[in-house]
């Protein structure tokens, strides 16, 4: 490539806009070599996992994962879906993550609205309560919740274990409650950047709190909500601990925690595990590649203001 032809800034991403100012010098090549090497090193483990999942165990146990293939097949994927019932675990994940994301966004957006727009007394305390709550290590709250959920009875139609423990309700509740904190923090920051005049105009027109929130503020927050939704779905999908602790019935585990089921007690077929890992990773990778802009926006909304 020639150094002088700086690429025209056609596809500016949300994060790294292509600078039009051309740079020259020997450093340029070094930067490329370095970034390319690091990028490949970062991608290598993923590629290795995909590669391992396509090869039979006998072959890799003889020649190692780092060898030329004799035969490649999708057998392990088929096995993961048929014998190990990955579909079921996917459904479990959706049962937990979809309500989790929606509830967290709904409640957090109202709290953020109240904190950022209503100028209630004690707003800052409220904001701190939620923000700090999300930053606590999960293990601090796991023990009492475990005990508590074991003692909260639920009717049979809600939970076949008859308690909150070992039910989807427990995991949805904890996911929602825990993640509201992050969403409040991000949305409150976002809502502060909205012009106050719009809200004032609505108030003059006689809009109540609900209208100010639902009809005036929320539509303006659509980009932030999309970004947060993407991010939250990935996080809830990736969660490992909550389901591990609050669900004891293996059939109810979400997909990330169920990955352990592919591990045998005495013999572990790592190629099957690799296939399982790829299956688990695929949805988040697809979400990331399709919604990269939203995804990154969600992470950075909370960190850089304005």
């Amino acid at each position, binding site marked *: 490539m020639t150094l002088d032809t700086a690429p025209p800034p056609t596809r500016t991403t949300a994060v790294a806009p292509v600078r039009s100012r051309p740079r020259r010098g020997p450093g340029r090549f070094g930067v490329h070599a370095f970034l390319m090497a690091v990028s490949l090193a970062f991608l290598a483990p993923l590629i290795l*996992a995909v590669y391992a999942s396509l090869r039979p165990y006998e072959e890799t146990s003889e020649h*190692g994962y780092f060898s030329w293939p004799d035969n490649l097949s999708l057998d392990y994927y088929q096995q993961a879906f048929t014998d190990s019932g990955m579909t079921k675990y996917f459904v479990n994940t959706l049962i937990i993550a979809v309500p989790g994301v929606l509830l967290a966004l709904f409640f957090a957006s109202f709290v953020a609205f109240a904190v950022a727009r209503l*100028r209630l*007394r004690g707003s800052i305390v409220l904001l701190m309560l939620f923000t*700090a709550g999300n930053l606590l*290590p999960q293990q601090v709250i*796991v023990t009492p919740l475990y005990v508590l959920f074991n003692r909260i009875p639920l009717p049979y139609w809600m939970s076949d274990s008859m308690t909150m423990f070992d039910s989807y309700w427990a995991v949805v509740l904890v996911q929602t409650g825990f993640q509201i904190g992050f969403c409040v923090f991000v949305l409150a920051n976002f809502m502060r950047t909205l012009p106050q005049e719009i809200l*004032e105009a609505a108030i003059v027109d006689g809009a109540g709190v609900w209208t100010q929130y639902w009809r005036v503020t929320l539509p303006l927050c659509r980009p932030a909500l999309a970004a947060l939704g993407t991010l939250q779905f990935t996080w809830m999908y990736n969660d490992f601990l909550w389901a591990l602790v609050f669900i004891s019935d293996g059939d109810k585990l979400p997909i990330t925690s169920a990955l352990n089921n592919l591990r045998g007690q005495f013999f572990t077929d790592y190629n099957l595990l690799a296939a399982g890992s790829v299956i688990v*990773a695929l949805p988040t990778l697809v*979400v990331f590649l399709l919604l990269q802009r939203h995804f990154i926006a969600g992470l950075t909304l909370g960190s850089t203001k304005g």
Partner: protein
Amino acid sequence: MREREAPPVPTRTVGRRRRFTRRDAGVIGVLLGIPVLLDVFVVWGPTLASVVLSFTSWDGIGDISWVGTDNYENLFTNYPAFWPAVRHNVLWLAFLGLVSTPFGLLLAVLVDRGVRFSRFYQSALYMPVVLSLAVVGFIAQLVFSRDQGALNAVLGGGTNPTDWLGDPDLNIWMILLAAAWRHTGYVMILYLAGLKAVDPALKEAAAIDGASERQTFFRVVLPTLRPVNIIVGVITVIEALRAFDIVYAVNKGRNGLELLSVLVTDNIIGEASRIGFGSAIAVVLLLVSMGFVVTFLVQEMRGEKNR
């Protein structure tokens, strides 16, 4: 609080005059009440309960009896897994903070210089972040496993290959590499966003004053990244304290991979069910993290007032 001190601004009175009909109060009560209750029920209540339970010898079933600070004394003096776990958590923090985070900043600066293919670099470096740490743990096994792992194949291990994940002196470093794989991309994306927000006029002014690129970065750009630095710092600390999934996926956090979070989990879902003792470990985690969280919040709220 600051409400009362502030002089009534004209715009404020619009809100004040028709402040909150009964319907409004109802909406606020319900929609603010539910999340607050949920937060108290799921987060703050249990946190408080952990502190209280840490002074008991409860096993989760029988009566709760107070044992004062016995759990803590046992923890510090005769629980063999405790100090290794503390060391590992500190190591985790140091590695992410001193290696992974600066590396992420370096990558962000390089990508931000507007090189070609920056979109590709950015995606490649960021990709591990969307993976579950459990998946990262499994992938680590493919790379580091003794007999068939890719690393030993590259190094040509010979007849006596290194057991990267089985050797208790070695495995924590390999796991740290795997954790850093994810953390670096996360940090990079936060800094990229921060760098984008830096006013180019600042850099130009520095260049006109004859500052070198290095001087410009350290004296001009880095100080303006302060809010990002704080966020990155908090994330690094929290990640280091929360670390759990990855070691649990590899070997359930045993044999050289002990972490405080693993000890808590072991004490409640194991056969032992030592709720009181597990809570004491959790409280240690809580105290350490609260130190950082409070610092962060004070910064945040100070910014809030200047807004």
